[in-house]
C-alpha cells in the first residue's frame, strides 16, 4: 500500500475563490492510502515546495498528489521537488483543480465537489504508480548524410566542422547534385560551379568526411543514436584508390555512343567516363551496359592505357556496414517527366526542352560549349518561348502533374530569359506565365529587371498547343490581358517542368520509418517549429527532399539540420521518456497487432524460450518494445488483443482506477 500525501494549493485566490480548499484537503484525508493532507497558499513557491519535501520525509510518503494548476504548468516542478526529497519523480500526480475546475465553475459547492472528485481520481492513480527511470542509450558519434548535392555537402561540412565524422552516400559517381548541372544562380548570377566546386573540394579534403560515391543505402536498422546502416558500393570497375583521374581512358575508349546523363542525354560520352572536370571523387566509372569488355570480353583498351593499373573488370558490388548516431536525408529532386504532355510536343521535337536542359545548353561545359544552339540543327534560335508552370499547380486528379507550386521556376525562367537577352540581343524572348511568384530577397527586383532592362516579353496566359512545322515550332497561346489568342513561330521552346522528389526517397523513407506526404516529400516533425527534423527520432531533413527549395533556402536548411545533428551527437547518452510501452511476455501471443499500429516501428518480435510448469521448454514469439524508439502514444496497448501491452505511467489499471474514482 502506498503512503500518499495530498497537497491542495490555493493559488492565491485563483483556486481558493471558487473551491473550499480546506474542505477538499479534509475530504481527501479519508481516501484509502492517504496518510497526510494539507493546503497551502502557493504550493509552487519555495516555501510550498519545502513543505512538500518535509512532509515526504516526516510521513515517509511514497506517493504525492498535488491539487493545483495544470500539469502542463508545474508537473516538472513538483517532480523535481519529489526527487530532491528522495522519492521517484514519477510518483507524483497532479489533480488539475485550477484550469479545469476553479476557473470554469462559478460557485463554491460545485467547485469543491468537483475538486474532491478530481483529487480522488489522482489518488486512485498514484496508488498504482510505479517508480520509473528513463532508459539510457549511448550515441554513436558519427553521422550519415544521404545525398551529395548542395544540401548534403553543406550539412556534412557543418557537422565535420564541429568535429564529428560524417559519411556522404551519393548514388551518382560524383557529388555535386543538381547544382553542378546549373549554369548561373539567381538573383546574383554568379556561376554555380564557381561557388559549388570549392565546397566539393572542401568535402574531399576534410579528413572527417568520407564520400561513398556510386553507392546506395541498402538497409537501415536501429534507432536514434544507434543506427546500423548497410551501404551498397556499386561496382564502378575502377579502383578508386589507384585512379588518378587523368582521363586518358575516357579519351581512348572506343565506345562513343553512350548517352551522357550529366548533359541530360543531349550529347554522348564514352563507356568509361568522368562526369565532369571538377568531379569529386575524380575517378573514372565504367558504364557496364555499354562496355564491350564487360559485355562480351572484347576490348580492354582502358586497362591497356591506364598507367595506374586502376581498371578492374572483375570488381563486385561491395556492402559496407557502419554505425551512425544520426541520419540526414538530402535526396533532392528531379524535374518531372514531360512525356505525358502531348500538347507541348516534347516527344515530337528536339527543340522543345526542359529548363534543366536549357541550363546545360548555356553552360560553358555543356554539349554546345555554352553557345545557345538548337538541339535539332545547331542553328541559333531567334525566337524563344518559355512556358511556366508545366506540371505545377495541377488539380489533384490530374495524373500528369503535381498539385503544388514548384517554387523555383519563376526565378530560373526570369534568369534564363534575362541571360539570353543579355548574350543574344537579337533574340525575341517570350515568357508565358500564370502568376510570377518572386518572394525572396532581391527576387522581384530581378524579375522586373528582366522585363524593364532586358526587354523580355512577359505574357499573362498559358500556352495551349505547340505544333512542330518545318523547322519552326508553332506556339498557340492566350494573352489574357489583351484577351486574344496569339500565335508565335518559335525556334526553341523551354518548359519550366515541375519538380518532384527523387525516386529513391520513398524506399528510403520505408527503411528509415520516416513519414512522407502524398507527393513523396518527407514530412517534418512540426511544420513550423521543427522544420528540419523528421518525426522519426534521429532522422533529419535537408534540402528539396522536404519540399521545393532554391539554393539559399537549401543551404540554410542544411545548416539547420547540421546543428540539430551536432546537438544530438554532442550527447554521450540519450535519456528516454520513461512513459513507454512494455509487453508482458507471459501474456503476449505474438500476433503482430501492436507492430502494425506502431507509427515508429518500435516493436519487434523475438523467439524466446519459456520454461513450462512440467519442466519442459517451449519457444514462443513475443513482442519486444524498443524503449529508445517508443514515444509512448499507446496505440499498441489498445490493439493488443491479449492485454499484454501496457503503457508505463498510463497503465490500464491506472486509467481504470481514475474512471472508477470519477464514477463513484
Amino acid at each position, binding site marked *: 500500500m502506498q503512503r500518499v500525501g495530498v497537497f491542495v494549493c490555493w493559488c492565491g485566490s485563483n483556486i481558493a475563490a471558487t473551491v473550499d480548499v480546506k474542505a477538499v484537503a479534509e475530504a481527501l484525508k479519508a481516501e484509502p492510502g492517504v496518510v497526510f493532507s494539507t493546503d497551502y497558499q502557493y504550493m509552487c513557491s519555495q516555501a510550498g515546495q519545502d513543505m512538500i519535501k518535509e512532509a515526504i520525509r516526516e510521513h515517509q510518503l511514497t506517493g504525492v498528489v498535488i491539487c493545483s494548476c495544470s500539469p502542463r504548468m508545474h508537473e516538472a516542478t513538483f517532480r523535481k521537488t519529489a526527487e530532491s526529497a528522495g522519492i521517484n519523480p514519477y510518483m507524483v500526480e497532479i489533480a488539475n483543480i485550477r484550469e479545469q475546475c476553479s476557473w470554469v465553475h462559478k460557485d463554491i459547492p460545485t467547485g469543491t465537489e468537483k475538486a474532491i472528485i478530481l483529487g480522488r481520481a489522482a489518488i486512485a492513480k498514484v496508488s498504482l504508480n510505479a517508480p520509473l527511470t528513463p532508459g539510457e542509450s549511448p550515441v554513436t558519434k558519427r553521422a550519415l548524410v544521404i545525398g551529395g548535392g548542395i544540401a548534403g555537402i553543406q550539412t556534412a561540412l557543418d557537422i565535420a566542422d564541429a568535429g564529428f565524422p560524417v559519411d556522404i552516400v551519393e548514388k551518382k559517381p560524383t557529388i555535386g547534385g543538381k547544382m553542378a548541372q546549373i549554369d548561373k544562380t539567381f538573383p546574383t548570377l554568379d556561376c554555380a560551379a564557381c561557388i559549388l566546386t570549392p565546397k566539393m573540394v572542401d568535402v574531399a579534403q576534410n579528413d572527417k568526411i568520407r564520400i561513398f560515391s556510386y553507392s546506395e543505402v541498402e538497409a537501415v536498422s536501429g534507432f536514434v543514436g544507434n543506427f546500423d546502416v548497410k551501404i551498397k558500393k556499386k561496382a564502378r570497375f575502377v579502383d578508386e584508390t589507384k585512379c588518378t583521374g587523368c582521363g586518358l581512358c575516357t579519351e581512348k575508349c572506343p565506345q562513343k555512343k553512350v548517352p551522357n546523363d550529366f548533359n541530360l542525354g543531349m550529347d554522348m560520352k564514352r563507356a568509361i567516363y568522368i562526369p565532369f572536370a571538377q568531379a569529386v571523387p575524380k575517378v573514372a566509372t565504367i558504364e557496364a551496359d555499354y562496355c564491350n569488355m564487360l559485355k562480351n570480353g572484347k576490348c580492354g583498351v582502358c586497362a591497356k592505357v591506364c598507367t595506374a593499373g586502376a581498371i578492374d573488370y572483375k570488381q563486385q558490388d561491395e556492402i559496407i556496414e557502419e554505425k551512425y548516431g544520426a541520419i540526414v536525408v538530402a535526396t533532392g529532386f528531379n524535374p518531372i517527366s514531360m512525356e505525358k504532355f502531348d*500538347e507541348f510536343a516534347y516527344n515530337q521535337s528536339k527543340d522543345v526542352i526542359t529548363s534543366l536542359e536549357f541550363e546545360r545548353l548555356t553552360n560553358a561545359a555543356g554539349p554546345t560549349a555554352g553557345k545557345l544552339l538548337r538541339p535539332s540543327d545547331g542553328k541559333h534560335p531567334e525566337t524563344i518561348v518559355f512556358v511556366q508552370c508545366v506540371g505545377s499547380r495541377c488539380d489533384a486528379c*490530374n495524373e500528369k502533374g503535381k498539385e503544388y507550386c514548384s517554387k523555383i521556376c519563376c526565378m530560373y525562367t526570369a534568369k534564363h530569359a534575362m541571360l539570353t537577352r543579355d548574350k543574344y540581343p537579337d533574340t525575341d524572348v517570350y515568357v508565358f506565365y500564370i502568376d510570377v511568384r518572386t518572394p525572396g530577397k532581391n527576387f522581384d527586383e530581378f524579375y522586373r529587371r528582366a522585363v524593364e532592362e532586358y526587354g523580355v516579353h512577359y505574357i499573362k496566359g*498559358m500556352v*495551349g498547343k505547340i505544333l512542330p512545322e518545318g523547322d519552326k515550332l508553332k506556339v*498557340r*497561346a*492566350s494573352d489574357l490581358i489583351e484577351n486574344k489568342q496569339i500565335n508565335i513561330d518559335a525556334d526553341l521552346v523551354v518548359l519550366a517542368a515541375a519538380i518532384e522528389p527523387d525516386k529513391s526517397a520513398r524506399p528510403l523513407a520505408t527503411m528509415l520509418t520516416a513519414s512522407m506526404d502524398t507527393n513523396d516529400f518527407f514530412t517534418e516533425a512540426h511544420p513550423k517549429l521543427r522544420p528540419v527534423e523528421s518525426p522519426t527520432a534521429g532522422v533529419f531533413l535537408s534540402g528539396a527532399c522536404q519540399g521545393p527549395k532554391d539554393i539559399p533556402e537549401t543551404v540554410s536548411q542544411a545548416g539547420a539540420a547540421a546543428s540539430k545533428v551536432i546537438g544530438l551527437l554532442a550527447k554521450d547518452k540519450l535519456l528516454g521518456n520513461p512513459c513507454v510501452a512494455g509487453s508482458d511476455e507471459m501474456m503476449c501471443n505474438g500476433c503482430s497487432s501492436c507492430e502494425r499500429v506502431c507509427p515508429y516501428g518500435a516493436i519487434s518480435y523475438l523467439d524466446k524460450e519459456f520454461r513450462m510448469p512440467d519442466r519442459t521448454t517451449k519457444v514462443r514469439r513475443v513482442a519486444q518494445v524498443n524503449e529508445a524508439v517508443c514515444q509512448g502514444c499507446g496505440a499498441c496497448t489498445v490493439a493488443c488483443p491479449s492485454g499484454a501491452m501496457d503503457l508505463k505511467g498510463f497503465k490500464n489499471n491506472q486509467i481504470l482506477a481514475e474512471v472508477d474514482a470519477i464514477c463513484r
Partner: protein
Amino acid sequence: MNKKAIRDEIIHISGVNPKKCMKCGKCSGTCPSYNEMEYHPHQFVYMVESGDIEPLMHSDSLYKCLSCFACVERCPRGVEPAKIIEAVRLMTVRQQGANHLKSDAIPELLDENLPQQAIVSAMRKYSK
C-alpha cells in the same frame, strides 16, 4: 430566374466547379474556334463564376464551340470549360423554350468556312 439561380443551375448541369480555375488561360490558348468567338473559353468560366451570364446567353459564341474538348483535356485544374459552355447553351435553350431549328432551315445558315466537325457535332447534339 435570378442571376444566382442561373449560375447554380449551370454549375449543376455541367457538374463543373468554376472556383477551381486558376485563370491560366490554357483553355483559350488551345481553343481552335478562338477567333470565331466573342467570349472565349476562359471568359465563360470566369463569367459563370461571377454570375455575369446574360451576355453569354445572348452571344453567338455559344454556338461556335466545337466541343472538341481540347480545353477539357488540357486544363491543369480539371475545370472542363467545354462543359460549362454546353451548360450555358442548354440554359439558353431551356429559357427560350423549344427553339430547335427546322432541318430545312439549316443549309442556308451554314457558313462556307464552317468546319465539317462543327456541323457533325451540332447535329449530334441538337438532333435529339
